[in-house]
């Protein structure tokens, strides 16, 4: 077995031999579509990995770039005849690249640096995390319901946090939010392989000062402790990335109870769909427009939630719901996730533009999604294309139709 290990880059040989290189995953790969080369799709990357490991090649920048030019959308796993867990493998490779100091790609390390220093990848002040809460909305300190806001809604798209809180308040729920105590869920770090690494500050003259050791497990367990301390039993998410990470990744880091989380997780699309099924939601106005829905990869393929958002959309009076050419399990990725937008900004917008094209082809005037990153990427694509199309998340639609907009 020694032949499969290299000094520089050891990797589980059992994982390397899984892929048959049939290339079935190629043409649906957003990365292949963008770069048009065999090094930039799942099967091609695994072929590369095998070559590097078995031929004992030194890891170079091109290899690192190829490994990071993937949005981890899981379309390849969906297409794979034998369901090779490609996303797990690519995250594992990224982890090993970070461990060996060859990764992450480009400036993706800044996210990790900021999470260590300020508990969010944007480098915003942690004490301002709950500044988005408006005076006419209600949060509590003893509810069994919690709202995991996430870094983007806390700092960059505050209207999302506000809309979600108003939605919960409408149904009589005053959730707890962790506020300053909420740390990043670590989705961007896990996706880019920054599980554990040393962080340094680099001065202009190039001298490095050791800051500390980034450890995803510590951040996750901090969040876990705070949630448990507060007695939260059900957590709502507006961010698909946070939802996916807490639901699927946190159990790997939570050592108690055999990794079974002591609370339930629910995405707001599931929450709304449940309310509709229970007859607790009556829409106050209609939306007489043609609408299409984009499945966020983290919510759809990763966790398997396809029906809930559609149940919500189809229940809205006057709406004409139409599916895109590729929907549900087959949905094309917008290119925002897996560190792709952060590392390959322009390519991510090109990718979103191609998905936007599919939405335009349906004749829809509104593109709805359930992910803040998808929304942002689509807005960039719309700006680039100069087309007229509304991009909304489910919570935006909800507060619009229910007349719950806050002051300002």
């Amino acid at each position, binding site marked *: *077995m020694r*032949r499969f290990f290299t000094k520089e880059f050891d990797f589980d*040989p*059992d994982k390397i*031999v*899984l*892929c*048959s*290189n*049939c*290339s*079935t995953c*190629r*043409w649906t790969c957003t990365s292949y579509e963008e770069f*048009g*080369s*065999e*090094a930039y799709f799942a099967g*091609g*990357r695994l*072929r*590369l990995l*095998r*070559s*590097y490991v*078995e*031929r004992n*090649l030194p890891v*170079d920048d*091109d*290899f690192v*770039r*190829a490994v990071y030019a993937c949005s981890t959308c899981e379309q390849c796993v969906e*297409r794979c*005849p*034998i369901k090779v867990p490609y996303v797990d493998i690519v995250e594992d490779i990224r982890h090993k690249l970070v461990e060996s100091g060859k990764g992450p790609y480009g400036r993706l390390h800044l996210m990790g640096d900021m999470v260590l220093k300020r508990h969010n990848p944007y480098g915003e002040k942690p004490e301002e995390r709950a500044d988005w809460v408006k005076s006419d909305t209600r949060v509590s300190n003893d509810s069994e319901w919690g709202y995991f806001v996430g870094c983007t809604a806390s700092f960059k798209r505050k209207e999302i946090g506000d809309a979600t809180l108003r939605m919960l308040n409408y149904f009589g729920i005053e959730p707890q939010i962790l506020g300053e105590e909420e740390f990043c869920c670590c989705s961007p770090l896990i996706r880019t392989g920054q599980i554990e690494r040393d962080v340094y500050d680099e001065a202009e003259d190039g001298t490095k000062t050791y800051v500390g050791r980034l450890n995803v497990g510590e951040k996750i367990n901090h969040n876990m402790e705070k949630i448990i301390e507060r007695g939260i039993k059900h957590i709502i998410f507006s961010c698909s990335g946070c939802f996916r990470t807490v639901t699927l990744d946190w159990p790997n880091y939570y050592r108690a109870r055999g990794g079974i989380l002591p609370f339930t997780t629910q995405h707001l699309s599931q929450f709304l769909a449940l309310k509709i099924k229970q007859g607790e939601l009556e829409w106050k106005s209609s939306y007489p427009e043609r609408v299409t829905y984009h499945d966020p990869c983290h919510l759809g393929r990763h966790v398997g939630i396809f029906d809930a958002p559609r149940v919500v959309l189809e229940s809205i009076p006057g709406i004409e719901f139409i599916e895109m050419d590729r929907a549900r399990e087959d949905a094309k990725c917008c290119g925002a996730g897996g560190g792709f937008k952060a590392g390959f900004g322009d390519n991510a917008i090109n990718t979103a533009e191609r998905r936007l094209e599919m939405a335009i082809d349906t004749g829809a005037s509104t593109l709805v999604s359930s992910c803040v990153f998808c929304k942002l990427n689509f807005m960039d694509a719309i700006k680039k294309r100069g087309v007229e199309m509304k991009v909304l998340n489910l919570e935006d639609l909800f507060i619009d139709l229910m007349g719950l907009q806050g002051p300002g």
Partner: protein
Amino acid sequence: MENPTQLVEEIQDLSELPWASSSMVERLSASGDTTGIPYYHFRWKKKWLADYVTWPTSNEQVAMVLKYASRQNIPVIPRGGGSCYYGSASPTRGGIIIDTKRMDKIVEVNKEEKWIRVQAGAVWEILGRELAKQGLALTVSPQSATASTLAGWLAIGGKVGIGTPKFGSMLDNVYEMTVVRPSGQVENVSGDEMKIFFGTSGIAGVVTEIKMKIRDLPEVVDGAMFGFDELDNAITAVRRLAQRDIRPVYLRLTDLEYEWRVQGGLPYGVTSRFFVMVTYDGDASDVADGVRSARGILEVSGGRDVGRDYYELNWRDRFIAEMKIKLEVPTLSMQNFWIPVENIDPLVRRMYKIANSYRINSCFYLVMGERTMTRFCIFAPSDHRHWMHFMAGKSMLHRMVKWVYKYGGELYTLGLQNTVYLKKFQPKDYEYFQEIRSRWDEKGIMNPDKLTHSNITYSRMNMMFTMNGHLRRLQALLGRAKRILETPVSLREG
């Protein structure tokens, strides 16, 4: 477009081209293929890593690369989907890879005359989807349609796939092609002129555009799948189905281990050992007639219906049938043959006998190409980390090649790996390919070591595999031949 000849003159180095790369990741990823074997097995491929990868998007750009390569005497390896199991697109002397996948545009669709003109790097599945949007469909497509390109299937022969029992081979469905000759000359070819491009791994030039038949989207697709206890009954059923006037689009015979590995198990209560699957498409009444009489034939031949769900599962998996077998198999070796269906019976029995003596696994599937000829595919599932098991699988495939030639068959795909057999067992074809090369590729730069030259001698290979086979049998005799893959329970019970 500027005159390509002038452009070529300006190129002194491929690095001048924005659509070429010499980076290690590009060369590695474009030099590999479906063969899931480790690199130490590639020794016989010699210089298996290309020096350059190019991604042309037009005839002119292909011509530019070919003229450059011809002038510099550099090998050129045309590449489609890279899904061939026999190294058809593998470099053996380095050189330049022409990756044709960026030439994938639909040029023209003629709904009235039912033809399409499309760039040859298009992937079959995408093309099928695009046509379906316009109410049209492909007549034929390969079983690897999810990955392979038009020119890729053409280069390995395009004889068996979905639709071939009804519409004939790919050659029968192509009206005209645009090709770039090894000299860089761009030409349109049609009729018999096209033959030298089918099954010749690109040695006669790079096919860049194809005008081919299409049809209306079939109204109905339906079929059946029956299980048989005896192989000869199943073969009789296949022969009778293939001879009928209502032609199926897909007709397949498989064995128990194949089904078990691909679908993970059979429907409850099914105990058969061989399975025949048949599918018809077209207008509703024809399909209903076809399926009704097919069911009659299958029943009369002694088959039992395995159920609608299982049939549909297999039909849905028609494009990934070969790959799904790798579900629990780390290394998949296989060999494809082109053989009359009536000669299959002794070969299958021979395969089981050899596999049993080597204590290895084996299974097969067979797809009808036309009325009498089939693609007979034998698998030797293994794990290359268990050297003796892996090599015994290879030895079995080697022995089966010899048996197939004895029974009037030949190899289906030639590529790099099978050229050694071509030279030994099909000397006339070998000469024919050499004639093509000497006429169109004087410098021998096009896809070297395929069809016209073998970089391994038959006697050496024969000795190696025979020795391996004997050693494995000795291992079995001493009770040391481990079966590394599980065998289906029903097979174990006989």
